[in-house]
């Protein structure tokens, strides 16, 4: 595969600055509603705040790749005297938890960096500046990117098996 310069979008997360407002969740879900901003629902957000005020845990986490299976080993991290579970720090849309799934269909959600916007919406709405945005150039091997549709299909395949998904698609296309 060939090498190329790639722009990497980076959101820096400063957990010390997070005030727990969940504006990031709200605006992400509103931005991805269709039509845009026509509704909001933090459950649909591609960023979620892991929050346990009594333990002073405030950890914004972005939705990453879909995974069909949960990890067998799950570690614990102690940072600054606070204990985090592996899943708290994990970005996966994973069967082990409800996070990063569409509430009605269960389809996985993934942060798309608000493609097309000057600045990610969650960053824009985080006045506390716990989330800041930067771009970085990196040399990379090019690899094909999965589109949103493919990710969704892949998760359906993982869940129901390829044959069942194909049958359903065939049935749906007949209904037309």
């Amino acid at each position: 595969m060939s090498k190329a310069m790639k722009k990497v979008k980076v959101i820096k997360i400063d957990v010390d600055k997070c005030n727990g407002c969940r504006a990031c969740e709200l605006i992400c879900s509103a931005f991805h509603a269709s039509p845009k901003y026509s509704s909001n629902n933090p459950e649909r957000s591609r960023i979620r705040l892991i929050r346990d005020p009594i333990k002073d845990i405030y950890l914004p986490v972005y939705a990453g790749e879909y995974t069909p299976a949960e990890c067998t080993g799950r570690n614990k991290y102690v940072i600054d005297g606070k204990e985090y579970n592996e899943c708290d720090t994990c970005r996966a849309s994973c069967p082990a938890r409800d996070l990063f799934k569409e509430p009605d269909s269960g389809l996985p959600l993934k942060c798309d960096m608000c493609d097309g916007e000057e600045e990610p919406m969650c960053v824009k709405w985080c006045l506390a500046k716990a989330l800041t945005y930067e771009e970085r150039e990196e040399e990379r091997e090019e690899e094909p990117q999965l589109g949103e549709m493919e990710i969704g299909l892949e998760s359906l395949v993982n869940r129901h098996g390829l044959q069942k998904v194909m049958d359903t698609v065939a049935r749906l296309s007949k209904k037309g």
Partner: protein
Amino acid sequence: MGYAEAGFNLEIDLTRGSIERVPTDPGLSKLYLGGLGTNAKILWDRVPPEVEPFAPENLLIFGTGLLVGTPAPGCNRTIISTISPQTKLMAYSMMGGFWAPELKYAGYDKVVFRGKSPELVYVYIHNDKVEIRDASHLRGKGAVETQELIRKELKDPNVQVAAIGLAGENRVFTASIEQGRSSASRLGIGAVMGDKGLKAIAVRGTKDVNIAKPAEYMELCNDVLKYISDREEKPVPGVMPILAGLGSPQEMLHTDEKWHTENFSWGNSRTRRKEFWTKEIEEKWTETQENARTRLISCYNCPMKCGAIISLPGMSTYMMKCFSKLTYNMAAFVDDLDFGFRIAQRATEYGVDGFSTPQIMAFAFELREAGILTDKDFEGCPDDNEGKFYWLLDRIVRREGIGNILADGTHWAAQHIGNGAEAYAHNNIKKHEQLPLKLGMLNPIYFLMYCTGEKLNITQIEGQFPQAPFPTMEEREEFVKDWVHVPDEKFKQYLLDWEMRGENSNPYYPTVDMSVDIVDWQEKMHYIDDALGMCAGLSSFPLKPPYHIHNYPKFISAATGMEIDEDGLATIYKRNRNLIRAINVRRGLKREDEKPPEDHWRKRFPELEEQLLDAYYKFKGWNEQGVPTKESLHELGMDYISEDLEKRGILSYE
């Protein structure tokens, strides 16, 4: 599909254990918006004046504001309404935090409780699934502790829980409802919740909240965010720090307490300590606060960080906001702020109002000093100021011994104790404990707000107009320059002409009519906020806030699709104002009740005060007793109120 609103209320009868999901009448939003307005309508319709606060027929309503759950920053209020055991009038108390948005996402605008559960229960709302669950294992548990236990029990960290502590269970008249960093603490609504046998309400919602005109609405919200950022860079000069910025008073951020400690009274609202704030105290208090505070935190969708997580060695963590860090210190005459943070932890777990409760205790110790209460009443009470307060707090919350009498608040306790105790309950309005503030010269604006405010709590009535004149004309001109918030240009002139001394100063300036105008504006903003669910800290309370009478109609239209302009909004405000007034006059509120604590100002002007009240009533369309007239109710389309008031002989046939 509804916009902004969920379109359903939950009706829960705790006696029968029944749960109903009832569609709301969209026509009501057009008349009363939502939140406080529609809460009040329900109370008017369903709770006649004969119903006592602790009767099963009394309702306890948890309402979300109309715009709660939409992207409008800071719009997160739960408005809780019932009949107050303290005043026997309508109580409404607001809490911020996360509960109301979660209820909207679960698909409800309100939860209306009636009846009484024979056993202690809690209610779990998860979208369409609503259950009444056993809470016997939570009896006696702290209000914060209960929230944690329920989250664990339900295995969902994202459940939002509003809970009472021991004080609510024991129907202490100053019991609060606690929820994360927020609480609804005034007027004893936690006691009504306890009386109903309801320990907590846990909510989880994963549905959408819809917006009628998305692009327009988002632009308005973005403007607000930008305004907040800019405004934070530009504190209002010439006023004290907590009035210079936005938000609730930033008591968790600021450590400079010179103003509060030297201007507010200590003890039973008696002693001013004008030299209190020394260098040494300042250093010590700053250190204490910075050590106690782990993080500054916000309510749902708000950047303001008015609250803090408080963690001190040897006790469990809790959250605090506003002035309660000082109230216990000042009531108990304790100069170490560490005491304030520690006793507030216990008080928060008990779930009591951090304003009234310390005042009750200071009142009790004054009665003991005066020999009206005796050492027998205080058997086992330690001698030191800190120990005394911990001891009495425990007695009150448990309703043990003298605590059982004091738990009814200073007004009722004084009635019960007799022997001249009434004179010591000197800081009440309509039986409700006021801030410990004693001043010199009568201020006509504040006089009206104290007398007539249905909320009975000045911090939730005041705002918008500066509390005092600026000394120089330059400062005034500077202030009015970007004062876009005024409903009318005349308010700028009122401020420009307001002097510290001389003819154009208190008490005769602002004049009677100007004072009425100013109060009406301040009230209007609070009533609209409380109907929309907006935090006062971004609207009615601070100077030059992001929300005001000119942009609110646009927000409402874009969110709901309902056509509304400034006049329309003003009419809704009037309707809600009159509705709550009507509930209270029907419950016996009279002109003679509308007065500030006698010693609130040293210099009083009886004749002027009567004129002020007369003018205010007239402006509102009320008769000389403060009762809305038939004509003014008719104009607002509220003949149903005048008919009822006539039947009861409160309005006479003319």
